[in-house]
């Protein structure tokens, strides 16, 4: 039946997902029908990555490294085992290495191959971490890239860039800021920004 509302076709049926979204649905349907993947397992994975992991996990590790000498010693001795005890290891069996910033050395993490990232500690990687601009340039001209993040390092402080792989992920332990003396782990956690654990920022007083 004709009607005078020309936009009507637009909302008569369900909003059509993008081609990519339809292709993902197709893969999911096929693999589920073949019994190769369990939708419940997918939901559980999504719940973890969308709701349970995030930079607060890494921040707590850093805060404890600052406040608890025994924890720092354990991290240095065997990071992977220490994080495993805390339930902070990934499912892919990767090793985690902590790199500690000092007045002499500032550490920065990248994945030049793709986007390997310590997901259980930092959550989903930010878009810039996955960009060609960051992945290619931070190796070549780290000081310039860091300056674009607003981080200008003193001349006397060297920059060391760590390239992650599927097997090894890095977590930067930023220097503990002045002004945080005497604070406990809970308070310190708020000083540890996500970028400070990648090396593109510093730990700072919470706003």
């Amino acid at each position, binding site marked *: 039946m004709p009607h005078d509302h020309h936009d009507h076709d637009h909302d008569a049926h369900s909003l059509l997902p*993008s081609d990519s979204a339809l292709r*993902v649905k197709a*893969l999911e349907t096929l693999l589920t029908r073949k019994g190769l*993947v369990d939708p419940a397992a997918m939901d559980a994975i999504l719940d973890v990555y969308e709701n349970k992991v995030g930079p607060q996990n890494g921040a707590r590790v850093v805060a404890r490294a600052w406040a608890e000498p025994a924890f720092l010693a354990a991290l240095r001795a065997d990071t992977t085992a220490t994080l495993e005890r805390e339930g902070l290891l990934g499912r892919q069996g990767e090793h985690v290495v902590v790199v500690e910033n000092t007045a002499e050395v500032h550490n920065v993490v990248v994945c030049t191959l793709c986007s390997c990232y310590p997901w259980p500690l930092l959550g989903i990687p930010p878009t810039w971490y996955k960009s060609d601009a960051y992945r290619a340039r931070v190796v070549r001209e780290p000081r310039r890239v860091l300056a674009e993040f607003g981080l200008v390092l003193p001349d006397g402080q060297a920059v060391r860039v760590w390239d992650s792989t599927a097997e090894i992920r890095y977590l930067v332990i930023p220097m503990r800021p002045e002004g945080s003396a005497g604070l406990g782990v809970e308070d310190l956690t708020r000083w*540890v920004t996500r970028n400070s654990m990648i090396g593109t920022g510093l730990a700072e007083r919470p706003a």
Partner: protein
Amino acid sequence: MTDPHEVTRFDEPWHAQVFALTVALSDAGRFTWPDWTRAFGATLARHGLSRDLNGGEDYYAAWLETLEGLLAGLNLAAPDQVAALRDAWEAAYLATPHGHPVRLAD
């Protein structure tokens, strides 16, 4: 209280879905994570030759292309079957009135 930890979220539901699908397949032993990162890195390198990838939509487009290729190569998901199901989903969306759950015709 402001949150000092900028939390990144998936921009689109399908980004989350393709991520979860890949992790679930790896968990189930269909491929190892290093195998995944090698294949994904190769796709990113190929795409990055013609333009600078921004790490957003193009990143997940490369992810999806890699997963399709990997599954085809492992004989786990034949491209023609995937294409037929993709078209079936499109038809289902077009045939389902707005506001109703979209289901595949059996």
